[in-house]
């Protein structure tokens, strides 16, 4: 076993703070995931469908990638191919040099961690700032994330308070909302000043060329909307074939990751800013990163490429819970970008059996990871393949396992005994005699106290083997054996569920508006109903209750007639935000937008960017007020993603409640980079449908 790994394990187990943090993580995450899955009609079937979709993608990766690239190019996105980390870094820095960029704002991307992008860019003189709160914290500490979803899961509030005192010069506090606010304030300027925004990609949709980026805090929206240039780093396996498949994945990813039905912001990005768009980056680049993935695809570890990076296997894993993400280190003691069960397969697959193969040995193979996996990856099977030495450059026939020497020796002896009934019986007699003697020495105690170095003796006693084995005793009792043919029905669990896809059409009879309102309120959003003519009144009330006199608003053509005029007459200054004026208007506290649709069962609204519809109006202010027509509410995400408008918009976003984070001690804090208040006003009259039909 790698000694560095063992040393890290011992350090983690002895760290009381870390143990508290990891316990809290597992307990909370497992519970919220369970609750979130209960809201799905047939979660097991969805997992199997998702597994099949991911399998199909990896089987036909080349053609799906080609489709994706063709559409993305048509949409005006620049596509780059990076074979390895070195090329990926070169592409990013080339773009950055060409732009004369100084400041780069990043949303969380595990691919960038994998290729060590920050370090490389900083060496070339760029300032790189992580904007996900958890990732910002670990960056300030000069650490790598310890969890792929909650990077600072290993820290407690005191650690963060101290860090902010040291690095940001803030007075020490243990108040998480104060810390979050401080980060919001510091990072707000970064978003506005950044020349380039870098994000990851959760999914790329082959049939449309759309990329989907999921965040809760709003930083993902910021870096893909505000800076002049957006670069998306995308692992080549991150493809889904269709928008329907995307809806399926989105029904599983946030539920598995954070127990949310949908993350607060689900951005669907199509194109760069076009001539008539008020905002959005002038340039969008996608860097397709291979970095070993194609080789993994052609190996027996290919199933690990099905992973959608939800982190639920980390939360479910009893070993991760004991040792935490930073303990997963390579032979050289350097941390593995991907920890936990998925990392124990992915790291050896991508970065070498010799370097990381030992990680797969730290598993009791309990199967909690497989059970938690939203795409039903058979992680125990893959862990066992890694243990057998099967890897990217080690197919089955030449695979060399690397168990610790003593263990291999012991097992060789065992195998020798167990491959002959006679030798086996003889060995049993020997250990039986050993057991009898041991019991005599201990004056009748049938327990053997093995030394700690034996492994077992570290914390457990071993029962004395019986003087006479079962087979010996059986032989003396049973005279003969009876043989008989019997027919048995097949096992109940042998056939995998192959029943047809479930009916995705709505099976609820309840009022869509009521369901939507309930879900929205559960997320912390506010809901009101109004007529079209009077919609200005509740808006004015909201603004007045906060003492607000100016608002970032969509163009009047995209909102109900007379709305902006009424507000103006009531003394509200109306500002139409664009990329050009956003810096001077970044302090405006309220934003007003329409919506293109809503999802009742998740309480989400859909916002489409495009002419007259600046995305920043729903992103920068503290308060976002959105107008929703009753008839635009659908039951499910799978219905909403079929809207033509999504493909025509440069970028779309699903918003599920106010911006939030739980990056410090998993304590929910509302209002990070996006709005902390979300008011939805539902227009419930026939007039509304006519008035805005051709506008959204």
């Amino acid at each position, binding site marked *: *076993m790698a000694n560095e790994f063992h040393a890290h394990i*011992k350090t983690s*187990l002895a760290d009381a703070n870390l143990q508290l943090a990891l316990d809290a993580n597992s307990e909370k995450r497992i519970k919220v995931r369970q609750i979130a899955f209960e809201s799905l009609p047939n979660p097991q079937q969805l997992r199997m469908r998702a597994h099949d979709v991911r399998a199909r993608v990896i089987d036909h990766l080349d053609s799906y990638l080609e489709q994706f690239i063709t559409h993305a190019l048509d949409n005006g996105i620049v596509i780059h191919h990076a074979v390895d980390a070195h090329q990926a870094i070169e592409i990013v820095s080339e773009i950055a040099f060409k732009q004369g960029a100084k400041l780069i704002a990043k949303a969380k991307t595990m691919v960038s961690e994998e290729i060590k992008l920050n370090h490389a860019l900083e060496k070339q003189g760029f300032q790189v700032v992580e904007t996900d709160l958890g990732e910002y914290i670990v960056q300030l500490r000069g650490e790598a994330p310890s969890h792929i979803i909650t990077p600072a899961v290993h820290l407690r509030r005191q650690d963060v308070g101290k860090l902010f005192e040291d690095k940001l010069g803030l007075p020490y506090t243990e108040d998480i909302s104060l810390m979050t606010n401080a980060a919001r304030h510091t990072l707000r300027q970064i978003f506005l000043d950044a020349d380039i925004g870098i994000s990851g990609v959760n999914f790329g949709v082959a049939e449309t060329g759309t990329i989907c980026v999921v965040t809760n805090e709003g930083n993902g929206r910021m870096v893909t909307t505000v800076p002049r240039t957006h670069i998306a780093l995308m692992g080549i396996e991150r493809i889904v074939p269709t928008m329907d498949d995307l809806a399926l994945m989105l029904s599983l990813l946030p539920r598995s990751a954070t127990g949310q039905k949908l993350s607060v912001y689900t951005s669907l990005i199509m194109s760069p800013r076009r001539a008539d768009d008020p905002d959005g980056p002038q340039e969008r680049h996608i860097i397709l990163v291979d970095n070993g993935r194609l080789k993994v695809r052609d190996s027996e570890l290919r199933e690990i490429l099905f992973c959608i990076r939800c982190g639920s296997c980390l939360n479910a894993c*009893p*070993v991760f819970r*004991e*040792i935490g993400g930073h303990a997963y280190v390579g032979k050289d003691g350097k941390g593995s970008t991907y920890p936990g069960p998925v990392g124990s397969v992915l790291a050896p697959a991508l970065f070498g059996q010799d370097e990381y193969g030992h990680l797969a*040995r*730290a*598993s*009791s*193979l*309990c*199967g*909690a990871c*497989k059970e938690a996996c939203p795409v039903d990856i058979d992680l125990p*099977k893959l862990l066992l393949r890694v243990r*057998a030495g099967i890897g990217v450059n080690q197919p089955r*026939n030449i*695979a060399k*396992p690397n*168990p*610790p020497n003593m263990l291999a020796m012991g*097992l*060789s002896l*065992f*195998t020798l005994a*167990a*491959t002959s*009934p006679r030798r*086996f019986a003889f060995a*049993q007699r020997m*250990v*039986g005699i050993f057991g009898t003697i041991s019991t005599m020495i201990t004056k009748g105690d049938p*327990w053997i*106290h093995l030394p*700690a170095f*034996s492994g*077992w003796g*570290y*914390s*457990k006693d071993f*029962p004395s*083997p*019986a003087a006479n*084995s*079962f*087979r010996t*005793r*059986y*032989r003396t009792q049973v005279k003969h*054996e*009876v*043989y*008989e043919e*019997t027919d*048995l029905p*097949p*096992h109940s*669990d042998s056939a995998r569920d192959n029943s047809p896809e479930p009916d995705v059409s709505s099976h609820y009879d309840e009022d869509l508006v009521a369901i939507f309102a309930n879900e929205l309120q559960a997320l912390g959003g506010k809901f009101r109903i109004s007529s079209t003519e009077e919609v200005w009144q509740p808006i004015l009330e909201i603004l007045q209750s906060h003492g607000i006199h100016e608002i970032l608003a969509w163009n009047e053509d995209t909102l109900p007639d007379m709305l902006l005029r009424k507000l103006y007459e009531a003394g509200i200054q109306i500002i139409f935000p664009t990329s050009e004026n956003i810096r001077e208007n970044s302090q405006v506290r309220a934003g007003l937008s329409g919506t293109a649709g809503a999802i009742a069962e998740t309480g989400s609204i859909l916002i489409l960017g495009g002419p007259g519809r600046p995305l920043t109006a729903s992103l920068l202010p503290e308060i976002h007020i959105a107008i929703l027509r009753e008839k635009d509410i659908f039951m499910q995400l799978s219905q909403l993603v079929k809207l033509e408008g999504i493909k025509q918009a440069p970028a779309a976003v699903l918003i599920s409640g106010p911006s939030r984070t739980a990056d410090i001690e998993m304590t929910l804090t509302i209002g990070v980079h996006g709005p902390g208040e979300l008011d939805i006003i539902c227009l419930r009259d026939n007039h509304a449908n006519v008035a805005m039909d051709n506008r959204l």
Partner: protein
Amino acid sequence: MTTTVQLFITCIIDTIYPETGEAVVRILEKAGARVSFPPNQTCCGQPAFNAGLRAQARKMATQTIQAFEPYPGPVVVPSGSCAAMIRHTYAELFAEDPEWLQRASTLASRTYEFSEFLVDKLGVTDLGASYEGKLTYHSSCHLLRGMGVDRQPRALLAAVHNAEFVELPNTADCCGFGGIFSIEHPEISDAMLERKIENLEKSGAPIVVSCDAGCVTNINGGLHRKHKNQRAVHIADILDKV
């Protein structure tokens, strides 16, 4: 027609817990089956397989397959993880050997875990067992997640006369055994076992029942070292009590 079952006793019960093996035989007979013990059986090969030593595991697996081939009828295994090894994992072990794959899958298709066989195949839950006191149940990983067997042992325990069944908090959490894992990573294994013991204490039961002698050995080994009074027992030892 009386069913004759081929008993695969497993190496742990064979070597360490012969009385448990005898209880298994008595219970199967009480439930109406005839029991046969194919003499050439040794170990299913799981220890070597889990260590990554597949060549060795294959030797033990072929030994096991051959040991049972002459004996028709259901193969009953009083251990969730050994049953799961035969039923699911042999396919992985022989993926590139069509002949042995076929022979392995024939064995897999007639292999059952003990409690599963009693309840699902023999249709028995009440075996007339009686136990005075509190009992709780640890759902072993490979039995629960590998084989999907949970309802069956619970039904058997629910039918034990005079026993008070209490739920073990987080029963589905691994006890930290994991075969060779517990030897390679004793520190992590211990931390996991500590939680299991804590939950056992919370349950208030002096006895925790499991369908896997591996879990029983692990949990008892820790309980004994830590001077705790609770004990883990194999389900056959409870069902055998009258």
